[in-house]
């Protein structure tokens, strides 16, 4: 029974739903920090500049690349849901989900090349 109940977790579409949820959660955690960082400009331009120079560290850049990936994958995963819910059902949902992940990886890789 347990094996049967957990079998759906092998499905690409279950993974797509989980990736959508986890990426959304990560973005929700990041957003207040993003807003606080931009808010530094209220103190002065120099304060924002000093934060941006701190963010040049490789670890921070790596986190930014991960965020670009999560942002893109959440966008594409969300578009997939809107299409499923609002238009006629089409075959190839798994291929679409895989394409969303692949496109997100390409965007994140392009960003990696840009910032490093």
């Amino acid at each position: 029974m347990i094996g049967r109940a957990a079998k759906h977790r092998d499905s690409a579409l279950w993974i797509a739903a989980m990736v959508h949820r986890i990426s959304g959660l990560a973005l929700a955690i990041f957003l207040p920090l993003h807003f606080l960082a931009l808010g530094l400009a209220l103190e002065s331009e120099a304060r924002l500049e000093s934060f941006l120079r701190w963010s040049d560290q490789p670890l921070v850049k790596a986190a930014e690349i991960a965020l670009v990936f999560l942002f893109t994958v959440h966008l594409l995963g969300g578009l997939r849901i809107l299409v499923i819910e609002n238009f006629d059902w089409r075959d190839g949902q798994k291929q679409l989900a895989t394409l969303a992940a692949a496109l997100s990886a390409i965007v994140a890789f392009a960003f990696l090349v840009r910032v490093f």
Partner: protein
Amino acid sequence: MNVRLYLWQRATAAVMAPLVVVHIAVIFYATRHGMSAADILSRTRGSIAWAAFYGLFVFAVSIHASIGVRNVLSEWTPLNERRVDAFAVFFGLALAVLGLRAVAAVVLT
């Protein structure tokens, strides 16, 4: 999730889809020579267009994210519905306030 929240979740997603595409393009553009405060602020200061764009973005994301977080808390934690709702409202309001503050910081200063 009730029908009203479901509709808000999907409507804000539809509104944000083009905004996210533009924002990703801006991220790539802004990092073309490394990011600097002068560069960012020279684009945004006094710009009604960017204020409207990011103002709408903040409004939509505050609703979208708070409903999403509410769903996750409701399904994955033992918190009762009243606490989940209270946290979602607090989170949405905090995002709206911090987001509009950030927009003001880059447009008005």
